[in-house]
């Protein structure tokens, strides 16, 4: 537990940059590596994972969206969002004292690592979160609209929620357990994706004749990269190289494996054949779900979390797409949103030290009972989910008013690659 909370306590307890001894080289090495791994999750990981799932006439648009979001969010992070998330402020947002990374030199530390490493590591989280949303409106969104929405969303949803949970804000103070972003990343992105699917509306071919994934090998390649990169995402969230980061990686891996097999088994039973898209989707479900929990639970807990993630997200996907006929194109909400929700709740449960082989490493600071912890977790889920939902809705409406959300029918038929970017994916 102690290790697990390093990050939170740090932000809460220390006046920024008060200490300026040398950084711990091992901790620094691991966070620099984790940073590379998390960027790798987005580029090319997520880009490939998503890109393979759309039609071949839209593949470049997905890759382009991931690249453009990465670049745009990076500059916004520099400009002021890092400050909004992590500078001293009130319980709801940080101030602007760290805009343009003011005062950050090679000697500034955050805990045992250089502040530059911390800021960059966090930047990669800010990048991947809006990139996740891309899956919901794939194959029909205008590039300009996507850019405007993503920029606004990171500023108005991601940065403040990060402050609430990790930046010294009210949810962190309350003892919310969210090690690597169940609320901050997966719930915010997942809920925004659901809103996107509803506001933008379905692809014109949905569900009648929608095209199957154009390149499953690309998707599986991306999936492998996500699994590997997630080691940095979750393991790096310990902000050091120690027993806590190692355990976070271990439970992350177990949950991914369990989610994969659970999804595979369900498909096998329900549809007669296990598919590679199924197994990798189960993997993402397992990974997303363990994310908030990975610093607090043990291997036994991770096994259950992964299995539950596979089962719940499998059914959620079916519900949203097949039953409710909502065209969240690449199933962002049922996998990330639902995974984030149940993961945040289960983090509270499996953190308990009294579950025998399924025990974890203890509750949040100042929290005494399982019930109390679960209440805090539920509060976190609700607050971040509702906030993300409402504000995302507003931002889509605003973007629609500014430039319009969708391409016209002819462009949708011709594909976004040619009509938005004047390029084609393959000329084999």
């Amino acid at each position, binding site marked *: 537990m102690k290790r697990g909370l390093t990050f939170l306590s740090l932000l809460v307890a220390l006046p920024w940059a008060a200490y300026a001894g040398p950084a711990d080289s091992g901790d620094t090495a691991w966070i620099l590596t984790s940073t590379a791994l998390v960027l790798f999750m987005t580029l090319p990981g997520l880009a490939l994972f998503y890109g393979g*799932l759309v039609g071949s006439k839209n593949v470049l648009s997905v890759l382009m969206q991931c690249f453009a979001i990465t670049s745009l969010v990076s500059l916004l992070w520099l400009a002021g969002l890092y400050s909004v998330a992590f500078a001293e402020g009130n319980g709801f947002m940080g101030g602007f004292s760290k805009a343009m990374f003011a005062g950050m030199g090679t000697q500034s530390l955050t805990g045992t690592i250089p502040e530059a490493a911390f800021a960059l590591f966090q930047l990669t989280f800010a990048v991947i979160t809006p990139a996740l949303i891309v899956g919901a409106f794939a194959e029909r969104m205008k590039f300009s609209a996507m850019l405007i929405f993503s920029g606004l969303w990171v500023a108005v949803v991601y940065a403040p929620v990060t402050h609430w949970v990790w930046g010294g804000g009210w949810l962190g103070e309350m003892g919310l357990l969210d090690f690597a972003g169940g609320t901050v990343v997966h719930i915010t992105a997942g809920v925004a994706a659901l809103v996107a699917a509803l506001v933008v509306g379905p692809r014109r071919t949905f*569900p009648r004749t929608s095209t*199957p994934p154009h390149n499953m090998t690309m998707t599986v390649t991306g999936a492998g990269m996500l699994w590997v990169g997630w080691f940095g995402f979750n393991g790096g969230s310990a902000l050091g190289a120690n027993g806590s980061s190692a355990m976070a990686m271990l439970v992350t891996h177990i949950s991914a494996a369990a989610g994969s097999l659970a999804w595979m088994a369900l*498909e096998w039973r329900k*549809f007669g054949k296990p*598919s590679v*898209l199924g197994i990798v989707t189960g993997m993402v479900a397992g990974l997303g779900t363990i994310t908030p929990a990975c610093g607090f639970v043990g291997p036994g807990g991770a096994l259950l979390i992964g299995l539950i993630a596979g089962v719940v997200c*499998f059914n959620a996907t*079916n519900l949203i*797409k097949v039953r409710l006929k909502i065209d969240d194109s690449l199933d962002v909400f049922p996998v990330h949103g639902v995974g984030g929700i149940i993961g945040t709740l289960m983090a509270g449960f499996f953190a308990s030290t009294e579950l025998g082989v399924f025990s974890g490493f203890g509750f949040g600071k100042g929290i005494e009972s399982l019930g109390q912890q679960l209440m805090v977790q539920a509060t976190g889920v609700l607050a971040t989910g509702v906030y993300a939902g409402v504000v995302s809705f507003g931002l889509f409406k605003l973007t629609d008013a500014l430039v319009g959300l969708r391409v016209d029918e002819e462009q949708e038929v011709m594909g976004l690659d040619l009509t938005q970017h004047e390029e084609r994916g393959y000329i084999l």
Partner: protein
Amino acid sequence: MKKIEAIIKPFVLDPVKDALKEIEIYGMTVTEVKGFGQQKGHTELYRGAEYQIDFVPKTRIEIVVPDAKVEAAIEAICQAAGSGKIGDGKIFVSPVETAIRIRTGERGESAL
């Protein structure tokens, strides 16, 4: 001179080619196509959503032959491509007025 167009299953291309060679038909042009007929397609499932794939991958062989060889060619193709199962394919025969070898300008049967 006739054009014989055969729509066959992709994996019998090699046997068909060999059978034609045996009756001394060396020239042919092959296209990958998708067929629709009595042989049904299949269903693919991606995350539980069904995609009905109506079309079956087929290979189209096109040979232009002198009238005298038409029957032999049909025979050879049926022999090599027939498995007795639905989807073995069709052969269509149609008239060709002339053939020209681009390299030499020769016309007629000698151009084949």
